[in-house]
């Protein structure tokens, strides 16, 4: 049992768990504790130190997009993303609910709304109180400054007026022919001007000082505002949900339509004359089509981050698959035939360093050429008909992103495959020659198995490159996915956009890590000799 677990841990590459298992079974406790300290405690401490530094340093740096978010703000943003996702899901189900289920959901929503209504008032009052308290405190703090400002500004006004009056008086007395005196006066004017500007600067600084005090963070107020916003958002959501459960509900709309249809039919039966009948008949036909389309309709759900993550995963998978299907056969041919390798070398050398930013527009144009009408194309329709991924609305932008991923990520697999096939052990070649294996057998029984570990090492690199490239490709192609989410956040300028981008950093990082670990497991499974794998 113990050894089975340890074996599984070893294969999965989660070696840091091994000391825990060993400790649990009482094997050399001090060795295990030292290993745990090194492999688990130290990384956790390092991360904690990082979070601590981050929360200390973040508020010091202010940008025009607002403060750099602290870990707490980022965590709030993550929760906000999830709440939004869950609420959209609620609306989606509410749209199709019927009968008793709809009634009870409606009841629940109304109850909750009644529950939070008084809370709204409370929250509003708390915000008002906090605001008042803040302005009182600010007024108190700034009182001496404001007094000083008033005094100084009055004195400077008087000074300036006096200086100007003195100058005018001197100017009046200067004769036209007295050039020297006039030039001296010009100098005096400049001096006056300079003084005036200095005084203005001083006043400005004083005002800025007062503003800074006023703009100081006021925890009580921001907490009250946060609570107020949360309640307001929930209220808005509940109102919308009630709407979706009543007037906007698919079945309710259909029922209204049926009602209308019945009315029209009775009118039609009573109608007099061909013209009136024709008009009503047309109306009936139109209404019937509308009702039918309502019955099949779904809630027009906006993409939320969790959905975009799934779509990005599908996109990277499609691109990775496409790249591998091209790279592995070419790699095998390159490894088998030095001539073919020589023929491919210029392409590999030339295309490998090309950036995804270049491939993407080309891919977009090419895909656009093949799919002139995205609404009616066998490939798009085929994707839409697939079970788990049909809702993702595969479009040309998605395909172009996937192709970009393939074009950028396939080189590692190609080169590694060629290397693996070319560097086959002489002993194994001799065996193949002695047994006089056919070309096919030689390929499938000797060459490919011995190259598999290197092929998988290449695939692992390809997948991590692909994941990096994908985000950029989605950002540019506006294919719904993580990249587009980041771009939307960058452009929309909401107060929590900056924090949401930080959330994306962690999401992208964790998914990349997970993909890499999965590939390590595969790599280990095909490594016949327990080939060492990097972390």
């Amino acid at each position, binding site marked *: 049992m113990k050894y089975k677990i340890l074996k599984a841990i070893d294969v999965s590459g989660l070696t840091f768990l091994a000391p825990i298992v060993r400790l649990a079974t009482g094997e050399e406790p001090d060795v295990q504790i030292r290993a745990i300290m090194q492999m688990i405690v130290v990384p956790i401490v390092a991360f904690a130190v990082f979070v601590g530094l981050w929360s200390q340093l973040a508020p010091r740096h202010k940008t025009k997009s607002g403060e750099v978010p602290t870990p707490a703000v980022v965590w709030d943003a993550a929760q906000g993303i999830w709440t939004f996702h869950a609420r959209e899901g609620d609306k989606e189900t509410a749209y199709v609910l019927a009968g008793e289920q709809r009634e009870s959901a409606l009841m629940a929503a109304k109850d909750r709304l009644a529950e939070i209504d008084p809370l709204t008032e409370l929250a509003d009052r708390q915000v008002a109180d906090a605001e008042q308290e803040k302005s009182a405190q600010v007024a108190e703090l700034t009182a001496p400054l404001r007094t000083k400002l008033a005094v100084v500004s009055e004195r400077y006004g008087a000074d300036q007026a006096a200086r100007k009056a003195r100058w005018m008086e001197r100017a009046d007395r200067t004769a036209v022919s007295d050039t020297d005196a006039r030039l001296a006066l010009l100098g005096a004017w400049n001096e006056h001007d300079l003084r005036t500007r200095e005084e203005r600067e001083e006043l400005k600084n004083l005002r800025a000082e007062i503003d800074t005090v006023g703009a100081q963070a006021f925890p009580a107020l921001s907490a009250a505002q946060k609570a107020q916003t949360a309640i307001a958002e929930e209220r808005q959501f509940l109102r919308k949900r009630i709407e979706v459960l009543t007037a906007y509900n698919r079945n309710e709309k259909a029922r209204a339509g049926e009602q209308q249809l019945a009315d029209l039919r009775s009118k039609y039966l009573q109608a007099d004359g061909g013209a009136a009948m024709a008009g009503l008949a047309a109306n009936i036909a139109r209404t019937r089509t509308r009702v039918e389309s309502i019955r099949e309709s779904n809630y027009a759900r906006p993409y939320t981050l969790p959905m975009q993550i799934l779509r990005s995963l599908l996109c990277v998978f499609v691109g990775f698959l496409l790249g591998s299907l091209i790279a592995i056969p070419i790699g095998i041919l390159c490894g088998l035939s030095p001539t073919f390798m020589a023929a491919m070398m210029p392409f590999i050398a030339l295309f490998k360093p090309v950036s995804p930013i270049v491939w993407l527009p080309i891919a977009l144009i090419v895909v656009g050429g093949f799919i002139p009408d995205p609404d009616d194309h066998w490939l798009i329709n085929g994707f839409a008909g697939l079970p788990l991924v049909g809702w993702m609305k595969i479009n040309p932008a998605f395909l172009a992103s996937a192709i970009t991923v393939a074009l950028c990520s396939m080189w590692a697999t190609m080169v590694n495959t060629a290397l693996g096939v070319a560097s086959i052990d002489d*002993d*194994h070649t*001799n*065996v193949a*020659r*002695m*047994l*006089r*294996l*056919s070309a096919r*057998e030689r390929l499938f*029984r*000797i060459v490919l*198995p*011995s190259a*598999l570990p290197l092929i998988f090492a290449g695939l692992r690199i390809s997948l991590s490159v692909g994941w990096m490239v994908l985000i950029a490709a989605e950002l540019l192609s506006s294919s719904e996915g993580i990249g587009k989410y980041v771009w939307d956040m960058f452009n929309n300028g909401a107060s929590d956009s900056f924090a949401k981008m930080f959330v994306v950093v962690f999401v992208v990082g964790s998914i990349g890590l997970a993909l890499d670990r999965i590939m390590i497991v595969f790599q280990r499974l095909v490594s*016949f*000799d*327990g080939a060492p794998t990097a972390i």
Partner: protein
Amino acid sequence: MTPEDRTPDDKFVEISGLTKAYPNPYGDDVVVVSDFNLTIKRGEIVSLIGHSGCGKSTVLTMVAGLNATSGGGIVVDGREVAGPGPDRAVVFQAPCLLPWMTAFGNVLLGVRNVYPHADVEERRDMVEYCLEAVGLADAMHKRPCELSGGMQQRVGVARAIALKPKLLLLDEPFGRLDSLTRMQLQDVVLRTLDEHAITTMIVTHDVDEAVFMCDRVCMMTTGPNARVGRLLDIPFQRPRRRDEVIESPEYFELRAQLLEFLAAQEHATVASRADADDPQQCAAA
């Protein structure tokens, strides 16, 4: 095969004027083996013995067809050797098993090609029989990395025997094993060879192995230009038993002759090397 075109038993394998030279970019070709002549009878076990690097493995790989000849010819059962093939199975010094296949799979790989018309059942029986013959009945479905060095080499032997070769070539097959395992494996191989009467060529540098296992020992001179130095018949009856062979007085006699030849070769080498080195040392000084 009709009796008329059957190769005469005493000339089952004929090696005549065999030469191997490697090109040397800075001078004359390096001639490793030159004018090597040897005839092997059907069912005979012959060993090639000589100092390391004398070219005995080169001869064997040329007979196997894995190494091109530079001159001379090799005829096995009336057919000139032109390349490697399963009729001349090789047991390599390293086991050379495919690590992604089980012992069974490794043996089956060859069987599949040699008996294309046998059905799955027959092939399986054949593989199992060969693995049992080398004492691996319990380890058939293990991968090479789970087997010890001796067991891996047994799989190598089973793979070679399963091909039903006309000529079995053993290239220092026990060189990498400890002495206990080596003795065990020598017994296993000898038993199997006796059972199937396979014509065999063993490359070795172990005098005891040569005397115990072979009908004839071919002593090679030390290279370059290695060739057959002396042939020695081993008169023991087969099947042999180790204790009987070792206790017989002839055993020591034969062993002594072999050792004497090898020692003489070594002196000759040292002398020739001293000659060759001298001018260089002068030049350096």
